[in-house]
């Protein structure tokens, strides 16, 4: 295997004319690469994503709806149990709601609303799940969901109904801004950072779009004013 490693690098260097390059030229190239990685050039962001304040929320709601997500605005997370209960009951039986462990969800009156809240990873029986987004992106109506010990990725992928809470304070114009904010919190990046734009879908049969190919069939986003 080490042979293959050296061989590929050798072929690349050969093709790129490195063997003939003087050492100071090679040093300059490596410095160029390291410089660009350390201080990346910033590309202009599309005008659509350069929004602020209420316009950001409006754009997010519009784009998320276009991607076939259901959206609603609530004053605070405290409204969630009452809002979510009928969805969980009507559509998915009463097998409980799988949730990521998050301070925004944990203290809410779920039992009073008739919902049994569970934590952990999802399995074959998971029908409904709820999570809190790390960020929202107005340009495309996307949610950023991040793997942590409290937030297993399977929670976002196996349920039929996926409910996501997005506090307005976590809404950004573009993916670039959301990633920058994430990296300020988690140096490097988490093991998985997933941008989700609408429910799972496929057009593999006669180019007709069907929701719920392997992931959620229904994505419901609550944008809350307060944290």
């Amino acid at each position, binding site marked *: *295997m080490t042979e*293959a490693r050296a061989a*590929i*690098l050798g*072929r*690349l260097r050969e*093709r*790129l*004319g490195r063997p003939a390059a003087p050492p100071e030229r090679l040093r300059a*190239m490596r410095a*160029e*690469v*390291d410089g*660009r*990685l350390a201080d*990346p050039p910033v*590309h202009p962001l*599309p*005008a*659509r994503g350069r929004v602020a304040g209420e316009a950001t929320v409006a754009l997010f709601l519009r*784009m998320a709806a276009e*991607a076939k997500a259901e959206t609603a605005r609530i004053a605070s997370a405290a409204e969630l149990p009452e809002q979510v209960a009928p969805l969980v009951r009507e559509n998915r039986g009463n097998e409980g709601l799988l949730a990521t462990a998050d301070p925004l969800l944990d203290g809410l009156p779920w039992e009073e609303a008739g919902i049994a809240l569970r934590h952990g*990873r999802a*399995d*074959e029986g998971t029908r409904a799940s709820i999570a809190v987004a790390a960020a929202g992106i107005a340009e*495309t109506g*996307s949610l950023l969901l991040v*793997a*942590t*010990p409290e937030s*297993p*990725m*399977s929670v976002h*992928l196996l349920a039929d109904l996926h409910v996501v809470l997005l506090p307005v304070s976590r809404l950004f114009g*573009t993916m*670039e801004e959301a*990633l920058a904010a994430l990296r300020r919190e988690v140096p*490097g*990046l*988490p*093991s*998985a*950072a*997933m*941008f989700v*734009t*609408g*429910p*799972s879908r*496929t*057009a*593999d*049969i*006669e*180019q007709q779009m*069907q929701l*719920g*190919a*392997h*992931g959620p069939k229904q994505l419901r986003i609550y944008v809350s004013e307060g944290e």
Partner: protein
Amino acid sequence: MEITSNAFRERSARALKDADLQDALKNLKRGFQEKRTHAVARLPEFSDLQDRAVAIKDHTLGLLDFYLERFESKVEANGVRVHRCGTNEEARETILSICKDVGARTVVKAKSMITEEIAINDFLNANGVEPVETDLGEYIIQLRKEPPSHIIAPAIHLKRGQIADTFRQRHADFSPDRSLDAPRELVDEARQIMRRRFLSADVGISGANLLVAETGSVVLLSNEGNIDLARTLPRVHIVIASIEKIVPTLLDASVILRLLSRSATGQEAATYTSFVSGPRRPGEVDGPEAFHVLLLDNGRSALLKSEFEDMLRCIRCGACLNHCPVYGVTGGHAYGAVYTGPMGAVLTPLLEGRERAVPLPNASTFCGRCEEVCPMRIPLVSLLRRLREGQARAGSPPLLARLSLGLWAFCARRPALYHGLARLGVAFARRGRRRGFLRVWPRAGGWGGRFPAPEGTTFQAAFRGQRKRRP
């Protein structure tokens, strides 16, 4: 898959007579072309982003040896095992040995063209490991034992009735009386089957849309969510990517992502865009415990600094297939290769050998729509022409073709002679005209034997006439 591109002529002739295929291919226009046009029109910066993306890729390719080293050290620091593979055989052996090491019996696969390129499925099957395709289109063609006919819509050549027949034959556990008329019913059945597959598989395999040197991340796009399930649920994950997928930074990746989904399906963003940076971390309860990245060369390095280097910018969006008049009537299987359409007509001879894909550079009208829609501004027509020139130098076109082209070139360099002959030809053709079509025309079989007769005079004469009317 076995490359059978040299049978393009026979396969495309068969494709033209296949009514189901012709019906299915009509969906290209509605499904892809119109959506792409709409999505591009909604992003006024699209063309600027294209310029940026081309500059990013060209910069990276020029320093690929250094970026490769930086990507590898980052991804290893994230706890990932890196394997460099020069050839398809090495890649297959590496994947098999990872599977054997963990005693894997089944592998769930995300749709990935590079796994088609290395033909991993047959190899795993032959060695006692069952590969299961999880992308719906890819799963359908796996059941039918067919290769994909499109790089992002592998089952685009099929109609729903054909898919329903396949499901009835292969899904023995389901009631034979069930209805499978609606696409919804087909999707639900596949979803149900795939659930168990995801949850019981030992290993997940995916390709990569981009590799980010700055963070050692793998970028994965899907609409179905199958890639993220294949990555999250099994205890081992293997990513296989070719070396030219590297981009320097997350900001660079964002530029290319804005082009990719719009060009591919006309979406503002893929439903799932994941930046994956290694195995599960302490305390996490899902995600793979072991994470491998295979970096495959298989002929890419030989294209650097060659007259075909532009092809290394390709991001596999499929726009050139969706807009190609040849692909639009032959479908993908006629190409007899992993990569089809215009990008496949360039890439197949380069990766598999010129002699194994002689007809492909000629399977183009040179209309240039592929170039027009290519987000990475790859000059596909020029690249195809260079391949044809190479064939001409090697003397591979048949004698008759070379003689006729020589004769045409002789006349074209002598305007007076050319115009005289053109006028004569038109006058002659008009005499033979019956109800607007010529009955007899040499070698017009490909036109269904009905070659339209010239309506008026020669193009040159008509052009002169029009200039006189509207100076």
